[in-house]
C-alpha cells in the first residue's frame, strides 16, 4: 500500500492492460509494455533527470514494483531502474537507453587494472543474468570498476528461471573503449546487493497479492457441493492465512523501501530492513503459492491456467538475490553480534 494513489492507479492500469492484451503463452520481454513504461516515465522512475529518469523516490518505486509483480509483468524494471541505471550513473557513465540489466561479478581486465586504457580487453563469464538477451546493455560491477557492455559485444546463452523469465549466461570477450568504464562508488557492492534484494522483495510482495486475488476470485466462482468453495470454512481459513502472509510481505517490503528512502542504502537500518523484508517476503511466497494452488485444484496446475504466472514467479524470486535462508542467516549474525541486550534495539532500530 502506498499513499501515492495516482501513481498506483497509473501503474495498475498499465500492467493490467499489458496482462489482458498479451498472450499467456509468451515469455520474454513484453516490448509493448516496456515502451509504455518508457513513455510514462516509469521505466526509470528513481533515476535523476540527468540520467533520463523521473526523479521519483524509492517509495514510488515500491508502489510500481509491487504492482508489476502482482500482474506478472515481463519487463526488467528492477534491473533497469534500481540497478543498471543507478550503477552507471553513480559511476559517472552515460546511462544507455532501452531496457538494461546489471550484475555484480568479477571480470578479467587485461592489461590488469587498466580498464580505461586504450586496447584494454575484458573477459569472463556472467551467470544467470536477468533479461540479458533483451537488454540494450549490461552494466557490470566488477571490483572497483563499473563496465557498460553493449549487448551486441557479448555472447548470450539463453537460460530461464522457474517462471521462464530470462536468466542468461553471458560470455564476455571484448575490447573496452574508455567511455564504457567508470569507477564504482564506495560501498557499491553492498548497495547493489541491497537494491537487488529490495527490488526482488517488492516484486514478491506484489506477486503474492496477485496470487491471493486470483484465489479469492476463483473461490467465489468455483461451485462444488452446490455452493462456491469460498463458502466453506476450511477454504476461508486457508485464504485468511494466505492474506496474512500477503499482508506481512507488503508491510515488510514497504517498510524496507521507506527505510532505504529515508536513511539511504549505506545505513545499518536499511541493511537490516532489506534483509528482513526479503526473508519475510520469501517465506510468504511459498505459503501463498501453496494455498493458491490448493484452492485452485487441478486446473491451477495446468499450462492453460494463468495462476502459474504468479506462482512460478513466487517460487523463482524467493530464491533470487538471496533466499530467505541466506538473508535470515545475515539477520541471525547481526542478532548474535548485538547479543541479548542489543536484540530489542536492533528490532526497533533505536540503539
Amino acid at each position: 500500500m502506498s499513499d501515492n494513489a495516482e501513481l498506483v492507479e497509473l501503474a495498475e492500469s498499465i500492467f493490467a492492460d499489458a496482462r489482458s492484451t498479451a498472450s499467456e503463452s509468451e515469455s520474454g520481454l513484453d516490448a509493448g509494455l516496456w515502451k509504455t513504461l518508457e513513455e510514462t516515465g516509469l521505466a526509470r522512475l528513481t533515476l535523476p533527470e540527468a540520467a533520463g529518469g523521473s526523479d521519483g523516490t524509492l517509495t514510488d518505486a515500491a508502489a510500481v514494483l509491487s504492482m508489476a509483480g502482482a500482474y506478472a509483468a515481463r519487463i526488467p524494471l528492477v534491473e533497469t531502474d534500481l540497478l543498471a541505471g543507478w550503477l552507471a550513473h553513480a559511476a559517472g557513465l552515460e546511462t544507455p537507453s532501452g531496457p538494461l540489466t546489471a550484475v555484480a561479478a568479477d571480470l578479467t581486465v587485461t592489461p590488469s587494472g587498466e580498464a580505461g586504457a586504450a586496447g584494454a580487453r575484458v573477459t569472463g563469464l556472467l551467470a544467470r543474468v536477468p533479461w540479458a538477451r533483451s537488454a540494450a546493455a549490461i552494466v557490470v560491477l566488477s571490483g572497483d570498476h563499473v563496465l557498460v557492455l553493449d549487448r551486441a559485444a557479448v555472447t548470450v546463452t539463453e537460460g530461464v528461471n522457474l517462471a521462464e523469465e530470462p536468466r542468461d549466461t553471458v560470455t564476455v570477450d571484448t575490447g573496452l573503449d574508455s567511455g564504457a568504464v567508470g569507477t564504482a562508488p564506495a560501498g557499491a557492492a553492498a548497495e547493489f546487493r541491497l537494491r537487488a534484494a529490495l527490488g526482488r522483495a517488492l516484486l514478491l510482495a506484489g506477486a503474492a497479492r496477485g496470487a491471493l486475488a486470483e484465489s479469492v476470485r476463483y473461490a467465489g466462482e468455483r461451485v462444488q457441493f452446490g455452493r462456491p468453495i469460498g463458502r466453506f470454512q476450511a477454504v476461508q481459513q486457508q485464504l485468511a492465512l494466505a492474506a496474512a502472509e500477503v499482508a506481512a510481505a507488503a508491510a515488510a517490503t514497504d517498510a524496507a523501501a521507506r527505510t532505504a528512502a529515508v536513511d539511504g542504502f549505506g545505513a545499518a537500518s536499511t541493511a537490516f530492513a532489506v534483509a528482513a523484508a526479503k526473508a519475510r517476503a520469501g517465506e510468504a511466497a511459498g505459503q501463498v503459492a501453496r494455498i493458491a494452488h490448493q484452492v485452485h485444484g487441478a486446473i491451477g496446475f495446468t499450462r492453460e491456467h494463468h495462476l502459474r504466472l504468479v506462482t512460478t514467479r513466487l517460487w523463482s524470486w524467493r530464491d533470487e538475490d538471496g533466499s530467505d535462508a541466506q538473508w535470515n542467516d545475515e539477520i541471525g549474525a547481526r542478532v548474535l553480534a548485538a547479543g541479548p541486550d542489543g536484540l530489542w534495539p536492533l528490532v526497533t532500530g533505536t540503539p
Partner: protein
Amino acid sequence: MTETLTRLPTLVPPPVELPERAAALRADVRAFLAEERAAQRWHPRADVWLSGWDERFSKELARRGWLGMTIPTEYGGHGASPLDRYVVTEELLAAGAPVAAHWVADRQIGPSLMRFGTEEQRQKFLPGIARGEVYFGIGMSEPDSGSDLASVRTRAERVDGGWELTGTKVWTSGAHHAHAFFALARSAPRDENNRHAGLSQFIVELDAPGVTIRPIPLLTGAHHFNEVVFDKVFIPDSMVLGEIGAGWHQVTSELAFERSGPERFLSTFPLLQALVAQIAGTDLDAEGSLAGPSIDAGRRRDLGGLVSRLWTLRRMSLAVAGSLESGHAPELAAAVVKDLGTRFENEIIDAARLLVAIPPDPGAEHGYARLLADAVLHAPGFTLRGGTNEVLRGIVARGMGLR
C-alpha cells in the same frame, strides 16, 4: 484480473514513522527499566500482561507520566498520542516488566471512557487510572458465550433509577484485585433477526452488593482468571457506558485497538532474548562461568528467521496504530496482526525448545528454564484471548468477500 486486484481489501495500512520525540521518550523508559532491573525489583517474565501484577510498578510508571498517556490533561492524563503510548508499551513488554495491574485500564478503559463515557464517569475514573491506582477488568465472555459474544445472557433489568444485573461472566483477568469492570449485558430481549441489538455496557464496581468473585485457576494453578457472578446488582443510570442498546457497536469498535498492539506478538519476547543469550554464549544467569557460544549456521538462521518475522510484525502493528491514530478502524489489518503475532509467540517457544537443550522448569526462580516453562504453560491463551484466531480468520475471509 484488474478488477480482482483492486477489489481486495487493504490488508495492511501504509507504513508509519514514529514522531521525533519518540526517541527521547524511549530512552527515558529504557533508563527506568534498566534501573529497576539493576535493583532486581522484578525479573523478566513471559506473558506479563496477564500475570505480572505489581501495583508498585504501575504507580512508578504513573509517576513518570506513562499511564493514561492518551487521556487529556483535564482528566489527569497527559494528552499524548497513541504512538507515544505505543513506544512505552512495547518497551515495557519487551523488558518482560510486570504490567498486568494497570493493563486493561490503560489499554482500553481509558480510551473507551473518553469515547463513550459521561463527564461524571470520566471524572470518577480517569484520574485514578492515570495515577496507576484504579484497576479494571473486562466482563464479556460467559460460560455459554465465548467466540459467539452476541449470545451473552447476563440480563440487565430496568429498575427505578438504574438497572439490575443478573448473570455470570468468566475469564475476567485480575477481577480479584480490580476496582471495577465493564460488563456487556442484554438490556432487551434477544431478537433473532438482529442478534447484535439490545446489548449494553455497564460499569460495575466490583465491591458492589451482589457481586461474587471466584477464582478460575489456570492449568498451572495460578490465579489470574475469575468468574464474576451478579445477583441483582444495582447499577445506577449514571454508570451505563454509552447508550443503552449500543453495546455491540461500542465493544466491537474497540477491537482494532485491542487486537493489533505489541502485546499480540511480544508475550514471549523475554524468552527470545534469553535464547539469544544462550546461543551467543552470554547467558547472564549462568552461574560462575559462561557456557560459551554455541553458534552454528542452522541456529543462526533460525534465530534470524524469528527476528525477521518479529521486525515485520512490529512494522505491521505500528502501521495499524498509525491508521488508528488518523481515525480509521482497520479491522482486517488488526485481525491479521493478531493471527500472525500470536502464532509467532508460539514459534519462539518451538525454537527455544529445539535450539537449546534446557528443559522448562516452573520451579526455577528466573532465567531460561523458567521463561520457557511459563511460555509453554501460558501458550494456549495466546491464540484464544481477544477473539480466537479462527474467528479472526473468519473476519478476514468476510472482508475479502468470501462470506
